[in-house]
């Protein structure tokens, strides 16, 4: 049975992960059957592509700076200080990462536009003489949205590092005369560095490969948009292959770099849990802190608030808030043919992707935890590889590798959408089932076997019941994330009949009249779905749910 599971897992990963990616290589390096670097070098002579590369790097760097400035102090405040409402804020600041900034971008356009809410408010308060172009060329707006979306990753990583942090390491330095700043510089930060680098690398790759936000902001000079556009004329212009290759290599490098940093850092001493729950703040300081945190919460939830407002607004021109509210957009969601198709499609794709992931996650997690075989390393690496592969790169690879086959997404993307949703989330499930199996004492299986149960029976009667809660929680999260998956949905769905929700939102957002409002309503529904799923999953899995947000 183990061999069967192994071959099935390898077959799936080979076909939907290895093959399409390998397909990219000859396309980027072969011309007329001969090896060439011409395609790569042609990238360097194309000023639009060079500009896009530069912009993408700038954007990613800016997002890292932004998320560091918010995330690090936030993590320190929320783990090191005691004040009423701390638990509430700890949860609250995870929320911004739940909804793709691409949905929030629709609402933020309304807020940040030349005559949007913010400028109107400031004008009315006479704080500015003329409207400020917040969105600028568009790059700043994208950076703001990405920062507001991604800083929870920084916050979570630093918090996790701080939670494992042995406070006596700092006290030892203080007893030798280190001031607070010296302490932070020489002890605290070096010890937090692995967590920080991990967060930076996730954020960098995420920002570099985010397709949805620049599309909504109609800002084409960025790497992901160039890749997206390249798909349409891929047969005449091979630049897309090289761009995807660049993205893949960059993400892989960051991934490897992070692992190295995390593994190289010696971390064996200490790690005693903090005995004291942090400094207790004075009333006054508490009030100040809570006010500051609330302000940050409002700002970072602004994209979400704005789409909620947008979804209920019937008229919102040249006013700070909508001048007329209605349920119309929600009615439209359930009556428009396009939105209904999108919802039905997404439900279908996501359900199947969830089932696939549960089966694969169970199989691979079990194999890795309970069987030592040649090729174990390979299976492990393959199952975890999607963490390092941006959605847009994989989607592009699918588009080209399966073009002209019965799986051609231009004809029918159903299989590929289900496959890409499951491949993208597989690492999370594998990791959680693996951890689950590891924690179960092998003696339990041996006890069952000694009473005469065969391996199949043991698995069904002993192991499965013990890991079902974790598995279900994982499944729910796969479902929720698949429902809201952006870049692969945008790339792979070509025909309206097969559009998933994200693509519908994107199409609607670009329409005039009530398009953005309906798109917002759809986004709000997605948000609700996600919250419900998250609640359900955390009930099942308890605190282990945070595993889904750690990416190394």
């Amino acid at each position, binding site marked *: 049975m183990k061999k069967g599971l192994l071959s099935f897992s390898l077959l799936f990963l080979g076909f939907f992960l290895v093959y399409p990616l390998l397909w990219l290589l000859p396309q980027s390096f072969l011309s007329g059957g001969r090896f060439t670097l011409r395609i790569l070098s042609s990238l360097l002579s194309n000023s639009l592509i060079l500009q896009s590369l530069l912009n993408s790097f700038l954007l990613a760097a800016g997002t890292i700076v932004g998320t560091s400035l918010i995330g690090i102090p936030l993590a320190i405040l929320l783990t090191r200080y005691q004040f009423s409402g701390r638990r509430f804020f700890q949860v609250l600041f995870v929320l911004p990462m739940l909804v793709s900034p691409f949905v929030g971008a629709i609402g933020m356009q309304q807020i940040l536009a030349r005559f949007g809410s913010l400028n109107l408010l400031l004008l009315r308060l006479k704080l500015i003489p003329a409207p400020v172009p917040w969105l600028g060329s568009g790059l700043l707006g994208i950076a703001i949205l990405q920062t507001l979306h991604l800083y929870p990753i920084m916050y979570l990583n630093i918090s996790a590092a701080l939670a494992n942090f042995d406070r006596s390491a700092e*006290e030892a330095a*203080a007893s030798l*005369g280190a001031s607070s700043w010296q302490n932070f510089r020489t002890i605290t930060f*070096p*010890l937090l560095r692995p967590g920080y680098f991990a967060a930076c690398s996730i954020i960098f790759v995420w920002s570099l490969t985010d397709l949805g936000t620049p599309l909504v902001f109609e800002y084409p000079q960025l790497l992901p948009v160039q890749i997206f556009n390249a798909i349409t004329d891929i047969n005449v212009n091979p630049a897309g292959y090289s761009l995807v290759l660049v993205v893949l290599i960059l993400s892989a490098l960051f991934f490897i770099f992070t692992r190295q940093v995390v593994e190289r850092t*010696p*971390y064996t001493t200490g790690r005693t849990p903090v005995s004291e729950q942090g400094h207790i703040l004075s009333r006054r300081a508490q009030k100040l802190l809570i006010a500051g945190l609330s302000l940050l919460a409002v700002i970072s939830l602004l994209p979400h608030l704005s789409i909620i407002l947008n979804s209920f607004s019937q008229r919102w021109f040249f006013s700070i808030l909508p001048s007329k509210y209605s349920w119309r957009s929600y009615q439209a969601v359930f009556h428009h043919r396009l939105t209904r198709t999108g919802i039905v499609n997404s439900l279908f794709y996501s359900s199947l992707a969830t089932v696939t992931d549960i089966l694969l996650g169970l199989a691979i997690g079990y194999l890795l935890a309970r069987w030592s075989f040649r090729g174990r390393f390979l299976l492990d690496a393959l199952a975890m590889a999607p963490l390092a592969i941006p959605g847009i790169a994989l989607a592009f690879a699918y588009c080209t590798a399966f073009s002209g086959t019965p799986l051609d997404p231009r004809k029918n993307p159903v299989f590929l959408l289900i496959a890409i949703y499951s491949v993208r989330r597989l690492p999370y499930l594998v990791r959680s089932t693996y951890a689950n199996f590891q924690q179960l004492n092998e003696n339990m299986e041996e006890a069952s076997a000694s009473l005469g149960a065969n391996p199949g029976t043991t698995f069904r009667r002993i192991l499965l019941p013990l890991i079902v809660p974790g598995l279900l929680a994982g499944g729910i999260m796969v479902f929720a994330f698949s429902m809201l998956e952006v870049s692969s949905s945008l790339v792979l769905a070509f025909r309206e009949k097969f559009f998933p929700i994200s693509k519908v939102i994107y199409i609607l957002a670009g329409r005039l009249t009530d398009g953005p409002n309906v798109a917002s309503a759809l986004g709000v529904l997605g948000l609700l779905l996600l919250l419900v799923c998250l609640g359900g999953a955390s009930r099942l899995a308890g605190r282990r749910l945070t595993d889904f947000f750690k990416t190394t």
Partner: protein
Amino acid sequence: MDNLILSLENISKRFGATPVLKGITLTVAGNEIFFLLGPSGCGKTTLLRIIAGFCQPDSGRILLDGQDITGVPAHQRHIGLVFQNYALWPHLTVWENVAYGLKLRKLPEKFVHQRVEEMLTLTHLLPQKNLYPSQLSGGQQQRVALARSLIVRPRLLLLDEPLSNLDANLREQMRQEIKKIQKETGITMIYVTHDQREALTMAHRLAVMNAGEIVQTGTPLQIYFEPGNRFVADFVGTVNLLAGKVSGFETGLLQVETSEGLLRATGGGDFSSGQAVEIGFRPESISLRPGQSNVFRTTVTETEIGEGIMRVMATSPGGRNFLLHLPLETGRKLQAGQNLIFSVPPERMIVFPLSPSVPSAVKRNGRDKPHLP
């Protein structure tokens, strides 16, 4: 007490509603190893953290060389602290860990180098200087922790159960090492432990703590042979105790009426006639030669071999059980059922007022305290 270094005045601290320290007053003299001994949860570590400056007392003052340092932040106190878990910095090598304190002070590179080398030599760590803490054994980590604190020559060195993570052999070796280092450097140490053996063998003076209070302060000999109450008597060893009533004084001896007859003890001027007391003796305080007072006629019930002694359980006709320690050669000849007459010289008797409110440290049946890890 000359050369006064640290004094605590009425230090109190509560965590939430729980009082952890109830008005601790204490003085520690220069160049001594002072022990805070007590069961876990008695507040000794909190007291140490208050002295170090990681914890603020709710009330009371801390004076160091006459200066009030109560509000001074930890990093300006110049008080060293060795942690129970060592708290070595995993990202720095042994050398860097030890050099850290000197580098903070921006001392010349050459001087730092020389001092670190001296310190590593003193602690036998020179061969490990380029290793990271995770590559060291427990004993080596412990020595790095010591070296790191000692190198800046703190005015006071605090040690928080520094040996509790080591195995028994290593612990014994490190006790000697710390004593030696203290002698060589002359640094004043305050050492927290729950291990009475450690406290008795290493301390110049010690304070026994219980439930947030200091129960008794003294030299190891005073604490062991003249415990002021039941808690101390129990915590620092085993004691055979009987309840009794003071019946008077005679030729400088305190007379106490007990179920085993009239017992006599020296000292104890502050007892009054008729006062309820507890009187007893340590297991090794007995003599098998016939004595004039405090003679017990007993029957041996059980013998077992201990560390260099024979443990003998004996019962009096009245049903009282006694634990006695005899030299191995004497004790091995004893058998269960045999009669045993012993006496305790009055100067080795222990007397203190009966105080039912003080809880006994560990309930035992006349046996030696199990050796705590």
